[in-house]
């Protein structure tokens, strides 16, 4: 992280935003009261992150900030200054799907798909910190995501298979 400065928005009201997004450095300006969610979607055109409740109760808006899941609907864009943000668009590398994405698809855990990006990021953050979660640890990691379509069984299955697949890779 860059050395912190006493930053503030400019005279004409915009904030000079500087952060890393999906591995790329971004320098832009943003109205300071724009939520991170709206900023990503409307200003940057990254519509993979979704808004569904705007209260922090559904997890559809999850992004990773320095690897930690956060509700982007509850953050104001300037708050990611000098941080690393990962959205769902940042997961696939060179057109190759992340193993978690692949397992969600393989296990039939994607129905309407609206909760999918948030869930995949939850799983990503969880497995990065804890590669072999118990069932309870999976539940703790996924309890902030609401899915209205699948009944969660296949989602849990996909996460478990992803953990297994990632474990195998390490060997």
């Amino acid at each position, binding site marked *: 992280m860059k050395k912190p400065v006493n930053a503030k928005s400019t005279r004409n009201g915009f904030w000079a935003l500087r952060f890393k997004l999906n591995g790329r450095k971004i320098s832009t300006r943003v109205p*300071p009261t724009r939520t991170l969610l709206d900023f990503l979607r409307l200003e940057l055109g990254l519509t993979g992150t979704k808004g569904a409740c705007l209260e922090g109760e559904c997890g559809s808006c999850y992004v990773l900030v320095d690897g930690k899941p956060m*509700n982007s609907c*509850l953050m104001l864009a300037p*708050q990611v200054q000098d941080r690393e943000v990962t959205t769902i668009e940042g997961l696939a590398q060179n057109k190759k799907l992340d193993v978690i994405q692949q397992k969600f698809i393989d296990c039939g855990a994607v129905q309407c798909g609206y909760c999918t990006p948030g869930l995949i990021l939850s799983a990503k953050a969880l497995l990065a910190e804890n590669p072999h979660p118990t069932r309870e640890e999976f539940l703790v990691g996924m309890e902030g995501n609401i899915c209205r379509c699948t009944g969660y069984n296949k989602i849990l299955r996909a996460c478990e298979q992803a953990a297994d697949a990632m474990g195998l890779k390490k060997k």
Partner: protein
Amino acid sequence: MFYQPKDIQKALELKAELKERGAFLAGGTDLVVLMNHGKAAPENFIDLTHILELRAIHKHNGTLELAGNVTHAQTGKLPIRCLAQASLSVGGPGIRELGTIAGNLATASPAGDGSAALLALDAEVELTSVRGSRRLLLDKFFLGYRKTALAADEMITKVIIPTNYQTDWGKNGKRGAMNISIVAAAVAITPKKEVRIALASVAATPIRCYQAEKLLAKNGLTAETIRQAVQTVRTEIKPITDHRASADYKVHVTGVMVRRLLENLVKA
């Protein structure tokens, strides 16, 4: 204007200058929800999330000093059961990474999950402004429904809790996760064997059950005194009927939870 100070001093100077016209912003889990619903539009923001000192946890003389912006995710990992359990029950992982202990206390929701745990721990809060620092028992910090002792230019810089209490915590809600509690309870036994009972969602603020505690102080913890304490708690509290639950259910279930938690303490 949006400010992102790098240290506490700068943040305090800004707050002293702006007072009510400057809103502290940390997790946004209360303020930004209101903004999303069109119910708040602060003139100025003082973003505290880039002040490293405010995330620190220090051990100090048999206590833990939690800086104001310590998150629920951080407190969820502490070896203090009531606080850790309360923190893990908050929202989902995202909310836990965003939400801060100071933010939670400053909002002073009667349903504050961590507040009951902190009350049972005899927590102290450190309130700081450009005029200096003062410490207050958490019990004296909550003044009324969503009202606290924070002055217009003050910030909660620390929460100080003991590490040697024996504690437990429980919550009653309508589903398995992400609950605004119907009732939350925390209990503790101090090294001197004094019992603490704290509740959330049964009054305008989180509260301590002093009458029940007095009863237990006189007679110790037995099955019979627990029964009497629970009865006392049930008469002490006056919850409201709201869209979450009726008052009589809340009274009943509070008693059940307090009894179970006290029984757990005795077993341990």
